[in-house]
């Protein structure tokens, strides 16, 4: 009995994110400052990666009023040496939500460049200051924008735009936002530190608000091969995605307007001549092979309408009813809908039906998915109980669901193409671990590519023991697509796998000084939350992590037992050195002798033995 009329308004993406900002990691000043740093640094690294540029990233955080207590406004600036962004795209890229260049299917740190916009939005909400973007794509001219977001309209408002001459390419983004550095500082420093471990080819500097400078210089000169953009794998598909792909693949009946007619005339070489309907058809028949698909469709329509260009100009095609073989059109002259029958025997009939009904299933599969060849496509059609030549445009909703389900279930598809992935590689990973931890022992492994739900992934792992690593291990460093994951580690799949491991079995005991680095690369990391901090335990990923860790643990165990043997030999030598002289002393008196026996021989022999095994251990390490 309510008289209140509910209002339904469409909200803009900006508004949506504004009201749900905690989803994206902007829940409080501490977390927001950290998330903003992440988003900008990751965008900078992604931009450089894509163009194969060795990244130089400079991060600066400055308090607007240093004396004020936290939380307070900070100016966050991230500058890179990447390709920059064309001036014309800048307002849209930084002033709208869901505008990005990252929609292809390949591994990247961020998905749509969405986080950066969120950071800008958050900055604007908390300080009402515009984002300042400086970009140079040619290393000569730099465009500088000050942009505000119109949240309701999801549109950029350019406050200021200037240009100046410059000598370096690259992008610099600067925002003012409310943050709490006293609380977020640790995480941000950890983030920068851990990022430089997984991005050894980047130089990253960080000037913090307290005047401290953290510099991480690149120690690998080769950038890993960039990932390629690929088609989707059939296992990673859903009904909605198929529907969209069909729309993309379907040939529309061209709108027959003046421009279209002009084009048909031109292609037939009849620009200036007005021929009768039959003459046009004759001409078309002769030129058929040279005609484009669009033109052919128009000719086919004309063949059933039996109209010349002049008449054609006065109608509008309404519908092609393939089932009843009827062609409906609107006659402007009579202002009514008319129809003509189509002769299925006509050569033009097929042209039209093909156009409306789209590609055959097998073509659709081979052309639009990765890992499907003609043979597999036919096999699949049989499995899914579809005719191979079935036109995609004729599938009912129910059949689409059936197709989608079968695509998931069919097991003969090859594993997803992993060329869209960009793992770091064993060598740089090992180099990084050695440089960062200076351990006694290091082992790394890159597992072969695998897939979950059609998304390819690769696990890279490293393990290191001793040296400068602090005790209390295993300390786990988690990465996903070259992003360090610092929060919410409790519920992460990597932690689960590590905690499930019985380290005693690998001769790791007590309070061991050891670390584990895990890097999951995928076109889609199954994060548990939008904050991108912990990875869900997908069975396939868990399995690969387990295999990787087992491999490394066995290597560690081999090292530990060598180390244990060396320790034992040393211990034994020490024991001999302690007790043999005592035995000598006692037996000398017992035997009633004056001079002690020459027991040095025994001790020397053993010292040599224990030294030998220490050397062996070193050799093994070097291998």
């Amino acid at each position, binding site marked *: 009995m309510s008289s209140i009329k509910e209002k339904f308004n469409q909200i803009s993406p900006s508004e949506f994110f504004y009201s749900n900002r905690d989803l994206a990691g902007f829940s409080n000043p501490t977390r927001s400052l950290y998330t903003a740093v992440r988003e900008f640094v990751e965008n900078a690294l992604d931009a450089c990666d894509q163009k194969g540029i060795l990244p130089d990233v400079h991060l600066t955080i400055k308090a607007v009023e240093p004396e004020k207590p936290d939380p307070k406004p900070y100016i966050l600036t991230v500058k890179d040496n990447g390709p920059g962004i064309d001036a014309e795209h800048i307002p849209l890229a930084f002033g709208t939500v869901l505008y990005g260049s990252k929609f292809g299917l390949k591994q990247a740190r961020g998905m749509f460049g969405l986080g950066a916009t969120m950071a800008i939005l958050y900055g604007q909400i908390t300080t009402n200051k515009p984002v300042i973007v400086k970009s140079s794509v040619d290393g000569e001219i730099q465009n500088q924008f000050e942009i505000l977001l119109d949240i309701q309209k999801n549109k950029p408002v350019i406050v200021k735009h200037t240009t100046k001459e410059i000598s370096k390419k690259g992008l610099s983004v600067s925002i003012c936002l409310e943050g709490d550095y006293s609380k977020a500082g640790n995480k941000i420093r950890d983030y920068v530190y851990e990022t430089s471990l997984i991005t050894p080819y980047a130089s990253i500097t960080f000037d913090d608000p307290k005047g401290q400078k953290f510099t991480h210089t690149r120690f690998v000169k080769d950038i890993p091969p960039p990932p390629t953009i690929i088609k989707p794998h059939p296992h990673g598909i859903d009904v909605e995605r198929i529907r969209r792909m069909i729309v993309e693949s379907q040939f529309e009946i061209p709108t027959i307007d003046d421009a279209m007619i002009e084009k048909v005339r031109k292609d037939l070489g009849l620009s200036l001549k007005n021929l009768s309907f039959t003459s046009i058809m004759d001409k078309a028949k002769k030129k058929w092979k040279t005609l484009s698909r669009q033109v052919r469709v128009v000719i086919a329509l004309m063949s059933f309408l039996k109209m010349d260009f002049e008449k054609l100009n006065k109608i509008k095609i309404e519908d092609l009813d393939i089932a009843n073989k009827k062609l409906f059109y609107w006659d402007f002259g009579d202002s009514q809908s008319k129809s003509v029958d189509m002769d299925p025997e006509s050569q033009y009939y097929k042209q039209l039906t093909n156009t409306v009904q789209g590609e055959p299933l097998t073509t659709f599969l081979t052309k639009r998915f990765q890992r499907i060849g003609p043979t597999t496509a036919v096999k699949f059609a049989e499995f899914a109980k579809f005719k191979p030549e079935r036109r995609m445009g004729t599938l009912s909703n129910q059949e689409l669901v059936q197709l989608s389900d079968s695509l998931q279930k069919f097991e003969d598809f090859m594993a997803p193409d992993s060329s869209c992935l960009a793992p770091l590689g064993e060598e740089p990973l090992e180099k990084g671990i050695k440089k960062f931890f200076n351990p006694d022992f290091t082992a790394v492994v890159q597992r072969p590519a695998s897939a979950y739900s059609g998304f390819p992934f690769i696990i890279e792992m490293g393990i290191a023991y001793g040296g400068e690593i602090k005790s209390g291990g295993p300390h786990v460093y988690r990465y996903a697509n070259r992003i360090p994951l610092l929060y919410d580690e409790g519920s992460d799949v990597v932690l689960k796998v590590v905690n499930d491991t019985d380290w005693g079995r690998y001769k790791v005991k007590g309070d061991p000084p050891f670390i584990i680095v895990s890097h999951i690369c995928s076109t889609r990391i199954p994060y548990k939350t939008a904050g991108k901090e912990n990875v869900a335990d997908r069975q396939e990923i868990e399995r690969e992590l387990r295999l990787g860790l087992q491999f490394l643990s066995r290597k560690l165990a081999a090292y530990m037992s060598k180390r244990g043997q060396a320790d034992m030999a040393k211990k034994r030598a020490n024991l*001999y050195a302690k*007790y043999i002289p005592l*035995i*000598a002393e006692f*037996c*000398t008196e*017992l*035997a009633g002798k004056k001079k002690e026996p020459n027991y040095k021989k025994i001790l020397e022999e053993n010292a040599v033995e224990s030294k030998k095994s220490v050397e062996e251990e070193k050799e093994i390490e070097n291998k």
Partner: protein
Amino acid sequence: MKTSKKEQTRIKERSKKADEKQKNILEMLKSHGATIYDDLDNGQFPKFSIPSRSVSNIVYDKKLRQYILGNNAAVRSSRNSAQLRSFTQLMWLAFFANRLTHEKKSSTLRDVYYSSQAFAIEFEDQSESDNIIVDLEAVTSKPREDFHIFPEERSSIFGDLNIEYTIPGYEGKTMNLSNHPDGYSIGPSLTTAELVDTSAEIVIAIEKGGLFTRFVEEQIDKKFKSIIINTGGQAPRSTRTLLKRLHEEMKLPVIVLTDGDVYGEHIAMVIKSGSANAAHLRELTVPDAKWVGVWATDIEKYKLPTIPMTESDIKRCYDLQKDPRYQDGIWKKELDVFLRLKRKAELEAFSKYGLTNITDKYLPQKLELAKSL
């Protein structure tokens, strides 16, 4: 004090005998030391074998009527880092025993534990050092007393027995063991003394100090021409050595009087045939010793006040039933009765019928009975 010529020769002979025993011990230690010295000098890790004292290597010898060690032996090597420490400890102990024997000084088990600390030989606790002492006994087949190492526990002796000391400073001194009514404690000087003569015809070993005092008061030594020994529970080795010597050197029969329970029965058995713990030694048993009471059958016969057995008492009964020495005779019979009664009686239980009931009535009956056992 004047001594006759004959006496002097006798003393000389005696001290010669003691010297010889000491010489043998020293020789043996020396030869062990020399072997190890030579090994070291040749650049080899010294080692020796120790008879295994594990349960599987302890067997009952029916002929000897005691537990002995079987043929299993373990090699203890200084090359083995796990054994190096105990090897060194044993070497030290031999070295220490050598000094004790040389200087004719005695040492308690606890002394050994502390003395070790002067030589950077760490024993974690006394039980570790006690264990090493048993090792030395096993290697040499000699009781620790031969190396002048004694336990603290003391039992006492009273009766007409003349002894002559052999320990330094007392050589030739004599003593009659009925001079002091509290008895004499059985320590190193007594166990090493010569047993000169006695008027006694029997040795009565009694489990409890209280009864020992009663027996002295009641002049059991005179009434029954006996030497009374208080074992203070399970008889210490020095006491068992002395019992053996009284039996063998003075030809005295030994009877044992204990509480009427399974532990008492076993105290008598240990005096008679030793304990599994000392299976590596053979000088500690009096196979002819007789247990005269308090038997389980006595509890009923003399209508003694009883207390119920505890669970551990009953378990002990079942354990002993498996012991080969409890398979026949009164040992088996009494054990079965204990199990049937599930009750026990102490020696003091006789006090119900008057303080002297045990000495006036019970003891004479038992002494009479012992002759026929």
